[in-house]
């Protein structure tokens, strides 16, 4: 069914692209909630942390499916190298290049997170700041080259995602201008 000449692969690539940006949005929002130590009754902080990891890894899986299906389908002329080497595609080099940049950033974020115990918190945090660049780049890639951006519900979904990330980032940087530090043992003891 999923041969290179079957339109289902093309439809699947469009579907995974839309789901990927939603997952990235959820991941960024949960990451901001985690760094600001947001919690609620019935929603302790470790739930936010674990869900952030799950959303990020699920996003990686769907982005991989999106890239593989776009290349395997062959309807648009994108090769394997163009998926990771920015602006090297012969088809829509700028918009595909933005997708490659977002993919590279996500790979770096994922690898450094998986190796966090080995690379140290400082390097991990430095790389993790690029998450704030990864989302807008991926979002712009979708807006620029997405087949379905003219559909009303896709526009509504995109606006919702943008509002969620912009709102969360604004709240994070206005409420917590710097990264909140963990309470020291002495400070915790005074509580």
């Amino acid at each position, binding site marked *: 069914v999923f041969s290179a000449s079957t339109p289902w692969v093309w*439809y699947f690539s469009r579907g995974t692209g839309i789901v990927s940006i939603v997952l990235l949005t959820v991941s960024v929002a949960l990451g901001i909630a985690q760094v600001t130590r947001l919690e609620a009754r019935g929603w302790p902080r470790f739930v936010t942390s674990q869900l952030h990891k799950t959303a990020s890894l*699920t996003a990686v899986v769907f982005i991989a499916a999106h890239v593989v299906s776009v290349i395997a389908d062959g309807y648009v002329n994108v090769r394997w190298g163009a998926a990771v080497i920015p602006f090297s595609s012969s088809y829509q080099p700028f918009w595909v290049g933005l997708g490659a940049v977002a993919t590279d950033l996500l790979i770096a974020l994922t690898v450094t997170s998986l190796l966090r115990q080995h690379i140290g918190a400082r390097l991990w945090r430095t790389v993790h700041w690029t998450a704030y660049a990864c989302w807008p780049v991926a979002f712009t890639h979708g807006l620029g080259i997405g087949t379905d951006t003219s559909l009303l519900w896709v526009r509504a979904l995109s606006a919702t995602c943008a509002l969620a990330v912009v709102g969360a980032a604004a709240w994070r940087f206005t409420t917590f201008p710097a990264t909140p530090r963990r309470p020291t043992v002495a400070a915790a003891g005074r509580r």
Partner: protein
Amino acid sequence: MAPRTPRTKQPQNAAHAAALARREQGNRTLRTATRWLIGGSVAGALALTGLFASQATATTSTAGAASAQAPGSSAAATGSAGAQAATPPAPNRSAAASASASAAPQRRAVTRSRAS
């Protein structure tokens, strides 16, 4: 060697019992949210795939019917219109049409093979 049994935490006092209860509630929330996140993503991708396929099928049927009702339309013209509509919408099709001559034949060839 004796089999290992899962270690269960026994609450030491009321505060500890409340903390364990909150932890357990958090675990339940996490399991539910994880299930919804992954399940919703898979279901969403499959649903969108089906939606785009059904939209293309509906467009094909509409275009085919319109061609058949047009006076003087030939079978070749009907097939051409249906095949054009059956082609999934390419991103920036207008840009693709105005692309360089070297790239155009390849995309047209792909379109033909997809329509068949």
